[in-house]
């Protein structure tokens, strides 16, 4: 018996070594595979998994985020040949519970499906009610980029972008879309929470895959225009249409939706017996007419659901968490009077940024007028009294510079020049002041 046991033990050890070697060789060539609802298959290394959403690092080094709502199946450690069944029954449910982390042997994957609840932060995409909704002025790529370290500092897993903006500058569309797509999506599960999202304020968040609507939510009306309400036409229009197609692709949305929001193209759908979209048409031939001829599409929460565009309806944080499929979530931030959600560090930064921009925008003409008048007075003054006007002009110039330091976009949107050109102009003015 002792011999037998000993033999069994040796055999077991031998088997273990063999399996370990096998496992090592598999690690060297193994891939994870994510099958999406639309049939696409993504292969790479699952860098992170959270409530069914995954971050996949692909061979080109990029990390891409796929929300749980898009994920049909997750397979781990699939071999290079691609067709074999994983060694473990590694087919996981698209929305695994935290208590059941599946056949998951890698330590970092165990960390990804953390025992703690995910941490979520709300950041605001403008504040139209405070007159701070303009995309390009109050909602900028730079401010969103600068919010990222603050989100990371608070170990945020999920970023909810609450939209309250009536639109803004076309010039800021792609920079903002780039930040959301290349910098937010790989790091966080990033979702849009739609309150008031008009024009550029819907086109930019179209980059995101998940959109949750407040019942009162409005989304669309993206026609580009200039001057006295003149529509952008010709090549300019094609450029904007193409930009929207690219943004749609990034968000995984049918480009016909955004097109109907830009120009007066109709949109209709066929539904299956379960009310799901079976086909979409850029005409009025579908069973359900979403946008008729001669109209620009702007969605409500009702039509967004009809169109299958809204991933859920939520007016409160509880409803939002439920709609997002979160069994539990920590909404990170401090209570601030008059604000209905916890204010995270990133949100606090964005609010301060907008407030400062608003103050500067209101006083822009004052800064410039003060500078110009003081320079004139200095140039006409005798040597004894020149200094006080130069000092005044310098203070005004410093205010202008601080304004652009806080928000470089103001160089473009207020002065019509690039930030570089603005800095050149400042250097010239400093030279003038020195010579005075």
């Amino acid at each position, binding site marked *: 018996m002792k011999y037998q046991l000993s033999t069994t033990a040796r055999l077991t050890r031998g088997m273990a070594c063999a399996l370990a070697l096998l496992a090592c060789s598999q690690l060297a060539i193994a891939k994870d595979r994510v099958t999406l609802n639309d049939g696409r298959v993504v292969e790479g290394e699952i860098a992170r998994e959270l409530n069914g959403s995954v971050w996949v690092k692909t061979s080109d080094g990029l990390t891409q985020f796929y929300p749980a709502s898009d994920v049909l199946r997750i397979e781990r450690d699939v071999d290079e040949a691609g067709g074999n069944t994983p060694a473990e029954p590694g087919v996981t449910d698209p929305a695994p519970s935290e208590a059941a982390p599946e056949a998951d042997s890698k330590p970092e994957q165990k960390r990804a499906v953390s025992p703690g609840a995910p941490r979520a932060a709300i950041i605001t995409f403008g504040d139209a009610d405070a007159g701070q909704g303009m995309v390009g002025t109050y909602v900028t790529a730079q401010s969103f980029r600068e919010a990222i370290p603050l989100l990371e500092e608070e170990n945020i897993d999920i970023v909810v972008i609450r939209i309250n903006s009536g639109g803004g500058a076309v010039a800021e569309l792609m920079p903002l879309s780039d930040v959301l797509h290349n910098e937010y999506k790989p790091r966080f599960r990033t979702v849009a929470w739609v309150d*008031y999202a008009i024009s550029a304020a819907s086109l930019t968040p179209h980059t995101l895959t998940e959109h949750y609507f407040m019942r*009162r939510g409005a989304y669309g009306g993206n026609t580009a225009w200039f001057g006295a309400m003149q529509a952008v036409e010709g090549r300019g229009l094609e450029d904007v249409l193409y930009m929207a197609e690219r943004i749609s692709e990034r968000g995984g949305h049918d480009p016909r939706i955004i097109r109907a929001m830009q120009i*007066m193209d109709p949109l209709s759908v066929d539904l299956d017996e379960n009310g799901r979209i079976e086909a979409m048409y850029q005409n009025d031939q579908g069973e359900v007419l979403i946008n008729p001829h001669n109209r620009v599409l*702007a969605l409500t929460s009702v039509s967004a659901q009809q169109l299958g565009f809204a991933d859920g309806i939520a007016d*409160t944080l509880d409803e939002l968490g439920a709609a997002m499929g979160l069994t539990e979530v920590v909404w990170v931030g401090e209570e601030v009077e008059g604000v*209905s959600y916890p204010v995270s560090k990133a949100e606090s930064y964005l609010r301060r940024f907008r407030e400062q921009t608003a103050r500067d925008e209101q006083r822009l003409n004052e800064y410039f007028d003060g500078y110009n008048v003081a320079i004139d007075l200095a140039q006409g003054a005798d040597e004894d009294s020149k200094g006080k006007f130069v000092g005044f002009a310098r203070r005004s110039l410093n205010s202008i510079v601080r304004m652009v330091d806080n928000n470089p976009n103001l160089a473009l949107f207020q002065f019509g020049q690039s930030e570089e050109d603005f800095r050149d102009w400042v250097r010239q003015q400093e030279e003038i002041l020195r010579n005075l």
Partner: protein
Amino acid sequence: MKMHELDNRGLIGRLRAVATLAIAAMVLGLAAMPAEAQQETPKVYYFAADGWFGKDITFTPMHEAMEEARELGADYIIIKVDVNWFQEEDPMQSEMPDDTGIFDIFGIRPIRGLFTDEGLAEWDDKPKIVFWVKNAMGSAAFLPFLSDTMYFHPEGRIGGIRGVYLRYQQGDEVVKEKLVAASLATAKGMVIDSGYEPKLIDAMARGETVLSYRLEGGRPVYLNREPESTDEFLLTNNALIDEQRDNIRDLARGRGKNFLTLRADTAQILGVSKGTVDNLDDLLFELGIIRNHEMVGDGESIMDNWTRTIERTEDALARLMREFQEIEVDGEWGDRRRARGQQRAKLQQMMGFFERYEEALEPRQIPGFQNFRSPAQVIGQFRIMLQRLELEQLADER
């Protein structure tokens, strides 16, 4: 004796029986009374949103009224909506037809927040908000839709938002349409939020909207087509079809069919209105609290004070501007310095008024400010003037 005793006992017994019956009747009566009578007396806070929308009816006074209602622990807040529906410059105050009016989504958006769950988050027990509709025309059309409960005055109406087109006179069609679509989606969002049918908004704002309804189980089923049977009823037809375009006879009588105006009867049939009442007591009766309620607060004073304050502010601004223009900067250095100081004080006073009452002031209607488009523009310009005064003083030699 026995009989007597019996009689006496009988009398006492009858008295007891009567008393018992009376108590029983009271108990039964109590049981039969509505639940409200047994509960704590509900507190009712009332005010009228009347006058000019955007001037008399703005965020600040409504916020103050709502705050007072919260502090007093109101269970019901009743808001009567009765806006002016004539041209402001019309001395005869002739009522405008239903099919006119300007709809500005930006006027209602700040007020909206007062009635949402977020706006009511500070309340321990959220109150029942009841709108009582008399004249909810133009931008005010959306006020009653901010709650799930509205009653109509017999002459009540909601509409006058076809002006969403008229607001954008210039520009290319597609750009106008974009702005209209965005405004209407926002308006419909408010309506959806309170549980009403967004198709009603299209019918009010877009002349080409065809909308009918039939009742199923007492509830309306809306149809984007003409009626096809006797149990279907037309709300609006297509203004783009010549023979369906409203004629002046119908328009003058408020019977047009191109743009929907909700009146008391139709609103009740459609379930938009919960009833028609012509006075506050009737409304309290409909709410089931006529016999047992306590009116609290003085919302009427808050709204009236605001109106008076704005009127006084407009007068003060006109006076201050006149006084500012009369100041002459001349004489000795000290006189000039003093004069600039007076100018600065006037400018700061005027700026203070525009900052405080920005939401309600329309510079173009105030003597001396006709060239300004908005309070923000006045404030910006005055800041520059203040700075120039400072520079002038710096440049002024003794």
